[in-house]
């Protein structure tokens, strides 16, 4: 398991990089609205399959929703707010969302982290970087062709895999099968 801590210091950016001025302004606008410390450290965990696997097979009492996505994947971005919604709405029902990003490593700093910050994602986000896809795609689900978005919902031994996009309604319908 690799683990990298990205430290985002807006001050340094604005001093060193004039080209990022416009982006800078946007971030500032949004950050000013809340008192949360969203522009300090974003701690991005990066896993290969062996590192990710334990997160796909947790044996607690929670309902785990694992969504494979990327910032460049339009249908993923479209459904991402629904995952955020269920993460918040069903928190008291023991639902936990994990957003597994398949962004390329060179995009972590330019795309992924800015996205997490801009949209103030509350669900846990991890980056998944493992080039041996022919090994882990069938391991995650035998029927997965490899297209994203894709989602796993599981609780203990009960598990379902979805190679599809969700509406909020569809996601809640599936989720309710796992909530007692």
């Amino acid at each position, binding site marked *: 398991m690799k683990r990298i801590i990205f430290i985002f210091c807006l001050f340094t950016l604005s001093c060193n990089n004039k080209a990022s001025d416009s982006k800078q302004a946007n971030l500032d606008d949004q950050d000013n609205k809340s008192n949360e410390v969203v522009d300090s450290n974003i701690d991005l965990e990066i896993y290969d399959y062996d590192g990710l696997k334990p997160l796909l097979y947790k044996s607690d009492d929670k309902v785990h929703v694992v969504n494979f996505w*990327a910032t*460049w*994947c*339009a*249908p993923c971005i479209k459904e991402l707010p629904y995952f955020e919604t269920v993460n918040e709405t069903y928190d008291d029902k023991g639902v936990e969302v994990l957003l597994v990003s*398949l962004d*390329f*490593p060179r995009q972590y700093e330019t795309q992924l982290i800015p996205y997490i910050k801009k949209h103030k994602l509350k669900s846990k986000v991890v980056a998944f970087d493992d*080039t*041996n*896809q*022919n090994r882990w*795609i*069938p391991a995650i689900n035998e029927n*997965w*062709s*490899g*297209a*994203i*978005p894709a989602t796993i919902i599981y609780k203990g031994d009960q598990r379902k895999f979805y*190679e599809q*996009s969700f509406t909020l309604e569809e996601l809640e319908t599936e989720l309710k099968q796992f909530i007692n």
Partner: protein
Amino acid sequence: MKTLKLCVVVVLALALTAFTFKSDSDGYKVGDIATDFSLENIDGSMVSLSDYKDAKGFIVIFTCNTCPYAVAYEDRIVALDKKYAPKGYPVIAIMPNDTDIKPGDNLEAMKARAKAKGFTFPYLIDKGQDIYPQYGATKTPHVYVLQKTDKGNEVKYIGAIDDNYKDASQVTEKYTENAVNALLNGKSVETTQTRAIGCSIKVKS
């Protein structure tokens, strides 16, 4: 007795039809005969597999402009065509996305991309989105290696180009090349199916 016979035939026929439909929706498996098509190329011509009288087979690749995985493989797709077209296995690229959803994949954009990257192969648009579901392509890039046989173009390999989308120099298994090499040498393909991440094919909901 005659009626019974007829019944059996009808039932059998129905069962067969149902079966055919099912396998259609799942797409091709290795060993199936792939359909030919007539699709518009970026130069305005219509291209069919049957146009290639001297080909021994085809490397059919569903790909597009807008998917980062497809883009990561562009140079390798060009290299595949340069290497295997002279040996009888040309690349046929097909763009399967709905261009209202992905304007970056429309015919004009396809032309521009092909020119910029120096595509040496036809880059066709599956305008009616009829062909990719028959093949069972779900994402870009998605490769089908076909071999010309008496029965038609037989599917010999389905899946990824190689085992490292990120870095061509770190590739250890060239799945598509291995499949074509085996066919050229009259051998059977060892790895007939592989999986890789790709962008889902875009359709109107």
